[in-house]
């Protein structure tokens, strides 16, 4: 008898997935039958409309979706991101003009910007010489003197406020499989920095040094060699306890190790070299911006796969949280951003916190950050996501909303489980498991900077909206 005739049931040992009453699986277990008990709860939180939509979008009717998602995952896993250069933004992004400000998150205008974002906008306007001081910059912004666009619109990403303007140096990550390039500014270090809305002289002075000294030096060093291949570097970083969002100490060190010889070789001045090495060595988050450009370079080739329900970007501007989905192209699905929950630096509390912000969630979009929490038990404690021993559970939980696992990015303490890769909007809505994001917390007033770190959930509403749009695009309404 073949499987066809017996439905694969009568001629094979019974192996059961039990959906519902635990008693049934306990009884089967007692009889020595292989049984997997599901942690079931009503799909889509009991919302029958979405439950019904999901079931119709599932499998056979949605073979198109599954195939499209498999292709999305294939492209993500095939990506070969390499840090290749640092170049002026004007050169990297031809469309970038004077008085144009790229920011983190989905589109937003001055009127709706949160405090730190406004602080960064005024600061960067002074840095670029568009305004004499912060006050006049604010007046100009309010009068529409600046053109605002999301970084994502110009192949770029930026952390927290994510200011990208024509006069800044940008790191370049090239996806050698597909040839596309992505850009991100250089991480400024901790403390008072523009990404958290800092805008005083100290902040602007550092930006000038990055533009005039460090950026060009880093660019020379990268052009001197073959660039820094990032896939293997990240794989090693994961085994060393980084998750690439809240913790980048291992990858930052590995990057420094890879760059130091070329930096020395191309240096013209020992003091400048020493300062550059000290800057990288003293910044545990140096790699974050590289990881972000890498994430963008991996995800961009995944945009516009017809019918795919894979998320290609998650991003927030401090007011809205937005996602983009492969099958619905460059459309943003937004919902009010949530407040992070976490740990605060002494002297600060959640009363000081700004809502979640930044393009850095591109890191979760490729399966790192909160999705790789299992690799980084220390972070779980630091961001208040639970005990170290629960870190693995977070990764396992996130693997339930992804299309697959990354066989090259694995977590040793979880028996080399691959990081959860390719967020599927269907699975997010179905399970109600919102992507978990590790994040820094900015002060809500402009100019103060980071006050803590924590975790935040992507709002489910974005995914519901995206699901409806996707259903419409595949003709299931």
């Amino acid at each position, binding site marked *: 008898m073949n499987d066809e005739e017996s439905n694969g049931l009568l*001629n094979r040992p019974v192996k059961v*997935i039990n*959906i519902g009453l635990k008693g049934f699986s306990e009884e089967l277990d007692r009889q020595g039958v292989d049984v997997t008990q*599901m*942690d079931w709860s*009503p799909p889509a939180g009991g919302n029958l409309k979405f439950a019904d939509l999901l*079931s119709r979008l599932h499998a056979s009717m949605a073979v198109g979706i599954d195939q499209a998602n498999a292709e999305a995952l294939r492209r993500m896993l095939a990506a070969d991101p390499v840090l290749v250069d640092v170049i002026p933004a004007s050169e990297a992004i031809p469309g970038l003009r004077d008085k144009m400000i790229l920011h983190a998150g989905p589109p937003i205008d001055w009127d709706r910007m949160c405090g730190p974002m406004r602080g960064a906008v005024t600061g960067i306007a002074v840095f670029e010489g568009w305004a004499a001081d912060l006050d006049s910059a604010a007046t100009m912004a309010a009068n529409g003197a600046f053109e605002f666009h999301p970084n994502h619109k110009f192949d770029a990403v930026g952390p927290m406020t994510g200011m990208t303007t024509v006069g800044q140096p940008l790191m370049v990550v090239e996806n050698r499989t597909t040839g596309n390039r992505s850009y991100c500014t250089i991480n400024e270090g901790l403390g008072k920095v523009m990404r958290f809305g800092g805008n005083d002289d100290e902040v602007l002075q550092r930006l000038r040094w990055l533009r005039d000294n460090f950026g060009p030096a880093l660019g020379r060093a990268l052009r001197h060699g073959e660039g820094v291949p990032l896939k293997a570097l990240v794989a090693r970083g994961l085994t060393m306890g980084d998750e690439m969002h809240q913790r980048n100490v291992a990858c930052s060190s590995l990057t420094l190790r890879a760059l130091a010889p070329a930096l020395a070789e191309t240096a013209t001045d020992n003091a400048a070299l020493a300062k550059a090495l000290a800057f990288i060595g003293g910044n545990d988050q140096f790699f974050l911006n590289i990881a972000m450009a890498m994430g963008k370079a991996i995800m961009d080739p995944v945009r516009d796969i017809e019918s795919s329900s894979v998320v290609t970007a998650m991003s927030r501007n401090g007011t809205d949280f937005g996602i983009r989905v492969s099958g619905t192209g460059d459309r943003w699905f937004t919902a009010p951003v949530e407040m992070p929950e976490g740990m605060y630096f002494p002297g600060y509390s959640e009363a000081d916190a700004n809502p979640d912000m930044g393009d850095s969630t591109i890191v979760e979009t490729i399966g790192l950050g909160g999705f790789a929490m299992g690799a980084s038990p220390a972070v779980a404690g630091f961001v208040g996501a639970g005990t170290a021993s629960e870190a693995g559970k977070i990764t396992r939980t996130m693997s339930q909303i992804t299309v697959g696992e990354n066989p090259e990015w694995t977590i040793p303490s979880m028996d080399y489980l691959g990081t959860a890769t390719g967020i599927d909007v269907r699975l997010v809505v179905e399970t109600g498991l919102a992507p978990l994001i590790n994040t820094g917390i900015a002060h809500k007033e402009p100019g103060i900077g980071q006050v803590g770190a924590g975790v935040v959930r992507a709002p489910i509403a974005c995914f519901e909206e995206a699901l409806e749009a996707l259903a419409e695009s595949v003709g299931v309404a």
Partner: protein
Amino acid sequence: MSDFVINDVRKGFYLDSVALMRMSRLVAGMADVTEAAMMMGTPANLAIMSDAGLLAEAGAAAGGGDLIIGVRATTNEAAEAALAEANAQLQQPTAGGGENHAWQPRTLQTALKTMPDANLALISVPGDFAVAEARKAIRLGLNAMIFSDNVSVAEELQLKLEARELGRLVMGPDCGTSIIGGIPLAFANVVPRGEIGIVGASGTGIQEISCLIGQYGGGISHAIGVGGRDLNSEVGGISTLMALQALEADAMTSRIVLVSKPPPKHVAEKVLKHLAASKKPTIVCFIGADQMTMPANTTQVFSLKAAARAALNMAADDRVEPSAPIKASADRPNIRGLFSGGTLCAEAQIVLHSSALAVQSNAPVPGVTRAGETCSSHLMLDLGDDQYTRGKPHPMIEPTVRDDAIAAALADDKVGVILIDVVIGYGAHADPAGHLVEFLQKHRRANGPEIIASVTGTDGDPQNRSAQVRKLMSAAVHVAPTNADAAHWALSAIQP
């Protein structure tokens, strides 16, 4: 004086209804508490709670993924205390907590990653969600057994049509019993493996036949439940035909038993036409049906017992008589049947009806009158019927739900015989005979009705059939070897 009704809503807190009902009962039993229920806020449950006078404003606003606690009490203090107890119950970790904290998959896809060679999804989630889960299961290549009820016929048909196209078997909805490869699923018994295959649209029908086959020395290859409505005109026997095909192709199976209520004529014809082409002898038991013209190689039988005997090529009848004659007192002329198994109730009706007794039932077989509000004759009640189980556990899981009916029968001075089934096995209550005996010891009075029972089960079952029989006999309950025999004993007990 009006009652105090209060609600508490736990957002996004899911627990299965069996666990909730157990807790509800505990809370409802508290002092001065009139009524209590803990339910997920599905539209159907909201209606039930509203009818029960348990719905306040908070509960009425709850969604399907929210848990509503509703209590009605004679004092506000009692209501608050009940609410606190309900919340405390919810906080209590379940037994064997250590294991339950282990990670469990949230989606079927993830479950399949952890068990790639799974071949069956056993689904017992609320009916509103069961079809969606089953649809996912069959599309992912699994067969599905749907224990859940409250699924519309239209959805059942759609699901089964798709399953047929995908070559996957859907057992249910409302499928209580299957035995696949010797493994009892949901409500089923530990029977020896053998060469008889069973296809059944009736859970207790499968249980009684498979247990009797075991009792007579035979064994079961597979018993496939298809759900109570599979042979209705709407569904047209889709799963029944697929199950028959699977057994016809199965090397271990040499004979097949098909058990169901009588299907509509055109469905019966379709099934018989299929059987006419089958190479394996088939015994057809459409319980309550008239004599039909059967194709060659196919035998029609009229009781569960006869089905088991025919499957083993045994003589049709071996009426077993009680060790001592049972006589009901002459002024108590009626038989009252109180069944937990629907098909066992049907079989008893057939025995009584075929002796020309005026029988009534809430679930009548053809020829039997539907019971009205009052009943002066022989009344056969299926206490597992929807009308008794809405918002309550099934009497096989929770024998206490039969207590009121037994008390009423004991108090009825026209009832001479109480006929009762005790169904054991996996899924069933841990000690139904024990409960029955305890109840009878409290409520039975001298010169009351005789009590005749049968035990559907085997000695391999966790409850052990022999032990259950001994308990019943120790409490002066007459125990017949089969349900059909029990009905015959009842019949002779009231005959002058």
